[in-house]
């Protein structure tokens, strides 16, 4: 696993530019567009971006204004199911890319957890409605005593 510890990446000019940002575009469950459609749409915008097709959607990297412009356009395809998130490392950075190291990518577990409720969030954004949730309360002491006594009596 030493590969995971001491990677000295050869970084390009763009990797050092503080104005270049990376964003992940994540499709929620039940999205009406596919990953490849999203990537195709990004290419069609004709902006100077690095675009990567991924299993969860895509990843784009470029100058801040170009990235935000592209995201604004891409959201129009399916506003409720397209989610975006910042990413610190550029696409394919050897310190994060699984092509160069072992184990799941850092940040994968968080995405996996959030993906389980992403469908509900998309549904709530698409069809907003009021909902109430009953607050779970602990069993009262009297009831607890009653249940305990009953079960003890039954045991005998």
């Amino acid at each position, binding site marked *: 696993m030493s590969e995971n510890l*001491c*990677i*000295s*990446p050869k970084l390009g000019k763009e*990797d*050092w*530019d*503080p104005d270049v*940002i*990376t964003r992940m575009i*994540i499709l929620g469950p039940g999205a009406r567009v596919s990953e490849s459609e999203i990537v195709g749409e990004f290419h069609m915008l004709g902006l100077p971006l690095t675009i990567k097709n991924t299993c969860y959607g895509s990843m784009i990297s470029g100058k801040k204004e170009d990235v935000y412009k592209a995201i604004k356009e891409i959201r129009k395809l399916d506003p409720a199911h397209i*989610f*975006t*998130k*910042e*990413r*610190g*490392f550029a696409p394919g950075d050897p*310190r994060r890319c699984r092509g160069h190291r072992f184990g799941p990518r850092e*940040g994968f*577990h*968080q*995405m996996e*957890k*959030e993906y389980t*409720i*992403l469908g*509900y*969030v998309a*549904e*709530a*954004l698409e069809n*907003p*409605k*009021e*909902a*109430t*949730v009953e607050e779970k309360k602990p069993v009262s002491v009297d009831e607890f005593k009653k249940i305990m006594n009953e079960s003890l009596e039954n045991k005998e």
Partner: protein
Amino acid sequence: MVKVAIYPPNSLILADLIERKGHTPLVLQKQIRQKIKDPEIDSPPMNITEEDPIKGLKYAAIEVPSGVRGRMSIIGPLIDDAEAAIIVDGAPFGFGCIGCARTNELSIFLLRNKGIPVLEVNYPTNQDETYVMVNEINEFIDSLEEKSQEE
């Protein structure tokens, strides 16, 4: 535009809901990007430098483990910039990116004590709870808009 701190600071759902309303979420990834793009830090740049625990002293005392102080040197500036905050309570184990329970406690304590509007939502497990969470967040962000307009 209001700068909203979120907890966990790498949350996709919280950051996305805030951005949809035109505000700025204070996410950890931006801090990490600053760190990895700093040419003065040696490679591999995600390593902690001797400066970090010193910066962390602003947020935690010297007796506090250096791990907490190191983490606070990255999360602390986000808390300083925050004009509002959204915190998720009752999340399952492993939710979030900090990897340190004490840093989580300290960060949430600092956000609560900062005197800014704070919304605490419960981690949803089903559809109705998600509706409640999304509605609460949207209402909170709308109330921030009204406040900033009044000012």
